[in-house]
């Protein structure tokens, strides 16, 4: 297991290098001199030349690239053009806010999606199966922004049960420690705030969970149906094992690997693709951070944002790969 983990981690190095190259190339493909952008239209030639030298932009591209990598390895993501602050400090709270939203959404999607898929396969061709699969089809085809707006209209405006936007009550802000508000409020014993934070999470996470939930449900159902025809499932039944355990122990463990792949990919997509949801619900996450940066042409922020999201995506897939081995003992022996 250890050697496999180490080998998998080492195999990430080329992927990460490739990622930095692409991000670096994209930024350099944008026409115009960043120094000009920073200083604005009315800057003098001298000041632009001075800043170009300061930023190292007069160096050949490979020197710039190595400087960039060197800074990255020191955890330095550069400086925001807009705020002049270090990006690695600025990006953090936004990133954590997005991670909190994504985690809640994907947990909802997994719990409901996997169970709906299992029950649909167990009682295939029952009314539950048909209903669940129709809902899943609707879920996959639903545009998230429309669902988000409808949710806001119904639950916030018409019924007044849930807040429309934001993460917390602005008049009673959460004292941030880790910036995962559910966790912060709990360890501070502020259960009233915990409730408020939870209420703020419901609508955006439900909107975000819909598509992955539907995909997970359909995937689980398909693989479970396949697995439940296997000989070892018949063996488990012949032992006198209750159907619940036959399904949830023997079948699920065999059916879960393709589902895990989907969960990993969907989690990555949620992290990077939450911009729409975050804008609708005013969620101060990395989506909004990037959206603002694009508006101000804050290239270093855009560059770092893309890099961070891509790195997390790669990391999630690493975790999924390691989970495969924990679940299926045959994997580590095949190579």
């Amino acid at each position, binding site marked *: 297991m250890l050697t496999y983990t180490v080998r998998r981690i080492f195999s990430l190095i080329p992927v990460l290098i490739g990622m930095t190259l692409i991000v670096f190339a994209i930024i350099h493909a944008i026409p115009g001199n960043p120094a000009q952008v920073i200083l604005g239209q009315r800057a003098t030639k001298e000041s632009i030349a001075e800043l170009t030298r300061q930023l190292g932009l007069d160096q050949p591209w490979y020197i710039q690239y190595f400087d960039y990598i060197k800074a990255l390895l020191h955890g330095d993501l550069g400086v925001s053009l807009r705020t002049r602050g270090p990006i690695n400090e600025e990006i953090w709270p936004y990133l954590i806010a997005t991670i909190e939203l994504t985690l809640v959404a994907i947990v909802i999607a997994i719990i409901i999606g996997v169970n709906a898929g299992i029950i649909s396969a167990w009682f295939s061709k029952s009314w539950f199966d048909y209903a669940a699969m129709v809902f899943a089809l609707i879920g996959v085809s639903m545009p998230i922004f429309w669902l988000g707006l409808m949710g806001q209209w119904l639950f916030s405006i018409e019924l007044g049960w849930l807040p429309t936007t934001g993460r917390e009550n602005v008049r009673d802000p959460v004292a941030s420690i880790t910036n995962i508000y559910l966790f912060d409020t709990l360890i501070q014993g502020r259960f009233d705030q915990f409730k408020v934070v939870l209420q703020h999470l419901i609508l955006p996470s439900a909107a975000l969970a819909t598509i992955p939930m539907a995909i997970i449900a359909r995937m689980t159902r398909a693989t479970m149906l396949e697995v439940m025809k*296997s*000989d*070892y499932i*018949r*063996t*488990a*039944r*012949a*032992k*006198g*094992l*209750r*159907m619940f355990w036959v399904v949830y122990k*023997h079948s699920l*463990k*065999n059916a879960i690997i393709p589902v895990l792949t989907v969960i990993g990919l969907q989690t990555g997509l949620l992290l990077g693709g939450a911009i729409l949801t975050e804008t609708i619900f005013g969620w101060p996450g990395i989506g909004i951070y990037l959206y603002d940066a694009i508006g101000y042409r804050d290239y270093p922020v855009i560059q770092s944002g893309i890099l961070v999201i891509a790195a997390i995506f790669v990391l999630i897939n690493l975790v999924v790969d390691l989970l495969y081995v924990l*679940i*299926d*003992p*045959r994997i580590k*022996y095949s190579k």
Partner: protein
Amino acid sequence: MNNEPILQIKDLKISFQSGKRFLPAVDGISFELREGEILGIVGESGSGKSVTSLAAMGLIPSPPGKIETGEIIFDGRDLRNASEKDWLTIRGNQISMIFQEPMTSLNPLFTIGNQLIEAIRIHTHFSKTEAKARSIELLKLVGIPRVEGILKEYPHQLSGGMRQRVMIAMAMACNPRVLIADEPTTALDVTIQAQILALMKNLNQKTNTSIILITHDLGVVAEICERVIVMYAGLVVEQGDVRTILKKPQHPYTKGLLKAVPDLKGKKERLLSIPGTVPTPGTVVQGCRFAARCAEVFEKCKSEIPDLYQSEKDGHEVRCFLHTLKEEGDEHVGVPS
């Protein structure tokens, strides 16, 4: 061994839905398994052997399968009335089953120990440690070396023969009264086959578990069974004592099967086979179902279905008109068509 029947199948009819029709897979078979005996059920693929045994486990997939009529009497009660809850106390506890494919019959993602201990703890109140001790005992019983190590291994780390031994150990976990073995040696090579058969014979003698051995190989039957049932197209065509049937088969189908067994001592000649195939369920056959492939067919066979007739020796029964003719003192006038 005494002659008390422990499992009786009476006039069992099972059909499978195909489209809108129900096609019979087992068409009214009756037999009994006596306490402590090894009973062979022989027949080609599609003759209804496996379906019959699955019915005795309450594992006919439904839909599409359906038991139409008949009784499955175990221990004095009809299992057709058993609820799923009743079945849970019977399966793996009173009646166990091992399957044809040892390669795929064990769950690949759980260790041997996990699967064995599970089988034990479903039906007992053993603690994990007690169940583990019992697993070790069982694995020794089925002749597995380095028992402790095997418990931590996964099925893919074992050979086919070893896996089948594990399957047998699992089936024997709760000292079942009946063990149904559905072609347990078909997927194994010959030397391993002999070992597995010897093991089953041994278990039968040690624990007095009655065994139903389903096979298409009369050689296997000859090796360990006491009585044998020959099935054809969902019907019993001949049943009786193994020695009698092997020496003096009455039904042309049984004769054909016996001729199809390769003989090491005999001259090298082309192996005989029975021409044609088992009629698929749903094909309407007038008269005897074997008539189309029978070498000794005559007119009556094509219009009427023969009953099971008692033969000269006690308990030997044959479903063939040839036999009644002899019994009635008639001259057999059939000519091969």
